[in-house]
């Protein structure tokens, strides 16, 4: 009763915005709208960024595209909603986006307390530090007294506090909202150190005027499983997003690529047949068409293709597959079977 009263009073203030919150059946909403509203970051090269012609691209963007391909049959029917790390959760809670695919770390409190459901991991990351080589620092343990640039509203901010406290070091933080501002502060010497997920560090280092003048320190101070998330309580929609991502991983495992997906349709492998819809009614069970996964692979590609195209070793970001390699090849990427 007490809680109800409190929420009643609170509701008075922001009720209008909450009144527009989406109903539970997100899948029906998306189909009716004919467009997926996908929350992405304001720009992290390789994960979600606009190219020169204004098209969004990146591994996070590919998750949005995969879901759109599965649900609407067209990977292009996505409206990207750039959100800052601070705004993202409110955007999802209020129904402004159907899905958040935005380098967001899967944590207990976000999963349980914030009313969200993480539907998988599309990048296993960890937090690192970048410094200028001229500082002469080689380990994060030498950073006592440093000024640190950090993005506000992230797990990074919390890990930073924990790391410095457990190692008996002090620091000063410059907390800003977007990655661009952080990098600008770092470049202009407003801070000694820049900290964020090591994948983003690599991406942003590649964009600096002289990448070789900057050093990413060896310490990885946290686990950052990044993945897409949806609102808690809409299990059907959660399943669609979860299996869209799984389909990309299974496709890579089975060697189904954008190029060979049409011939693979005739494959004898029962799992490939179930995946591509030539056997079983997996699509109908999800509330989708039978060729949902075929559309994903055809239009977006499998997980490995997406990785190599946007953040792999042949891109300016140059990330190694590392933990994000398939379980069969020494990584921890492991999708449940499609049956």
């Amino acid at each position, binding site marked *: 009763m*007490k*809680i*109800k009263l*409190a*929420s*009643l*009073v*609170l*509701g*008075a*203030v*922001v*009720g*209008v915005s*909450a*009144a527009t*919150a989406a109903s*539970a059946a997100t899948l029906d909403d998306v189909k009716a709208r004919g467009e997926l509203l996908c929350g992405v970051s304001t720009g992290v090269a390789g994960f979600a960024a606009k190219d020169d012609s204004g098209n969004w691209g990146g591994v996070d963007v590919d998750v949005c595209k995969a879901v759109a391909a599965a649900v609407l049959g067209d990977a292009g029917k996505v409206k990207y909603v750039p959100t800052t*790390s*601070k705004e993202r*959760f*409110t955007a999802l*809670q209020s129904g402004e986006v159907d899905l958040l695919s935005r380098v967001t770390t899967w944590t207990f*409190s*976000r999963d349980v*307390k*914030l*009313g969200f459901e993480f539907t998988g991991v599309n990048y296993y990351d960890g937090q690192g530090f970048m410094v200028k080589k001229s*500082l002469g620092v080689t380990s994060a343990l030498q*950073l*006592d*007294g*440093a*000024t640190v640039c950090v993005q*506000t*509203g992230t797990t990074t*901010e*919390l890990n*930073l*506090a*924990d790391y*410095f*406290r457990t190692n*008996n070091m002090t*620091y*000063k*933080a*410059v*907390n*800003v*909202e977007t990655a661009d*501002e952080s990098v600008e*502060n770092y470049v*202009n*010497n*407003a801070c*000694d150190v820049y900290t964020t997920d090591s994948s983003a560090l690599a991406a942003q280092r590649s964009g600096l005027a002289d990448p070789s003048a900057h050093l990413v320190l060896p310490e990885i101070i946290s686990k950052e499983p990044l993945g897409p998330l949806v*609102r*808690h*309580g809409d299990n059907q929609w959660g399943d669609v997003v979860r299996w869209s991502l799984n389909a990309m991983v299974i496709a890579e495992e089975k060697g189904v690529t954008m190029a060979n997906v049409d011939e693979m349709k005739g494959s004898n492998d029962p799992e490939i047949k179930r995946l591509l819809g030539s056997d079983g009614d997996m699509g109908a069970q999800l509330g989708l068409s039978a060729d949902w996964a075929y559309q994903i692979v055809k239009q977006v590609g499998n997980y490995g293709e997406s990785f190599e195209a946007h953040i792999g070793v042949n891109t300016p970001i140059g990330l190694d597959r590392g933990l994000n390699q398939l379980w069969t090849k020494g990584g921890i990427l492991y999708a449940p079977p499609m049956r």
Partner: protein
Amino acid sequence: MTHFADYIPYVACLLAIVTFNNRAQQAGNPLPSSLTFAISGGAAFLIGAWIGNWIIYWYFLGIQPANILPHPDTVFSTPDWKWVPICDPVRVSSLAKTLLVTPGCLLGIACAMFAWNRQYGLENRFIRPPPDYSKFGVVAAGHGGFEGSLINNPKVRSVVTQIVVIGSVALLFYFIVANTAHNLDRLGIASGFKFLCDPARYDVTGGFMPVSSTETHWAAFTAGLLNTFVVAVFGCIAATILGVIIGVLRLSNNWIVSKLAAVYVETLRNIPVLLQILFWYGIFILLPAPRQSLKIFDTFYLNNRGFLGPKLFVGDAPVLSAEQQATMISEMGDVKYQRLVEEAGGEENVAAALAESVRPVFGDGSSVLFISLIVAFFAVWFYRRWARKRQEATGQQSPVFLVSAGTIILFPILCLLIAGTTLELQHTELKGFNFVGGTSISVSFVALWFALSVYTAAFIAEIVRAGILAVPYGQTEASYALGLRPGQAMRLNILPQALRVIVPPLTSQYLNLTKNSSLAQVVGFLEIVGTIGGITLNQTGQAVECIVITMAVYLIISLVISVFMNWYNKRIALVER
């Protein structure tokens, strides 16, 4: 435990307030309104009782009434207000006990006020007899004597309209509340303010009160609040000073000066304040890095992290009990402890080093400073009254400014010297990446404060100019005819009259500046929107609660400014007869 001494200061204070008001009444001064009386009387009562309590306990009985009132030495230094009632039931019960100690006194003051009220008739001032219109030849028309249909009855119409309005507002309110409650419930988001007691898990640095990640969200919130407050207060002060100067300069007879002022105003008020903040931040971070800081007398340093200077300690470091020392050492961990021992030069100096590490700016014995300052202010107030009366009676002037400034500066210093309070300067020094020790102001704050001040000053300059132009030129000529110099004419005649025009729009500018301080986000200065409305909101997901708190804070700050400015406006308003 109640001691008889508890009651002495309360009763003394009560008597003092009642006597003071009686005397004021007898001297023919107008009665204060009941609200002013209640507020000023209450404040005087609390402050007087607090000081009195401490004098009795501390100096005469030698007891520290720790759970009754904060020690005067610590009230300005201990961040006691990081405490939030719902997080600390023990403290709440202690506070409740304190409040129970004084019900007799509170009852006493209520009775006294009532009696005083009866005797001098406060109500009589407010409940006036109805005006007698008959002298204007008007005969009051009775209501309700209206003939005809109800639709044409003005009384019925007015009642129905009001019911409809109230009803629709209530309905809208109900719709909003019920909808939100339903949606929060559906999303499984628990509401409530309990999260304020949880550890914040993030550090608040770079402001005026550092908060560590082990402290509560409430502590982080109060740190943000203090930062907002400091920006608002210092911004308003700087903007006013700069604005008045520019406003007066724009009216200068010197062509260059007035045109320069005009350019300042027209440029700065036409550029969005957000861009100006970013611009100044961009300029300030171009200062050299800490290791190449600009030095001023080897005492003050400027670099792209902040402006640094020495820190003045008033009073001694606290004396720590063996228990407190043990806790601090165990919290510190081995590495840090070894470093501390090394720096202190041996185990035997550890106690002193520990005490030094938690030494507040106003340490043990610093209450002398505050008490002497209060005494000095009162002395100056009485002196100024005396000087004014003397001038009115005899025409002789007194050196008011010199005496006031002298008293306020010299008297506390004298008191500190007599009491033998420790005064110590701590210099800042480069150590590793940054400077340690001393006082530092972050570049984010400086950029924000500077940008808000120069931006708002442009508006204030125009308000000041308008105010001065609103005073007829005859006033200036009259001043000159009386032999006043231009400066004196401006200060004694023109500005006081101009203030009547200046103050109301000035209030809006103060409010704007305060609200604009929320743009601190872009330079990474953690004020209230950055802490409770930003990181806390994001980490706890309690968006509704955090936004409500943030809005309430801005509302309260704005209302306080408005009330203060309205009071000031009333004070300086032309008294018309």
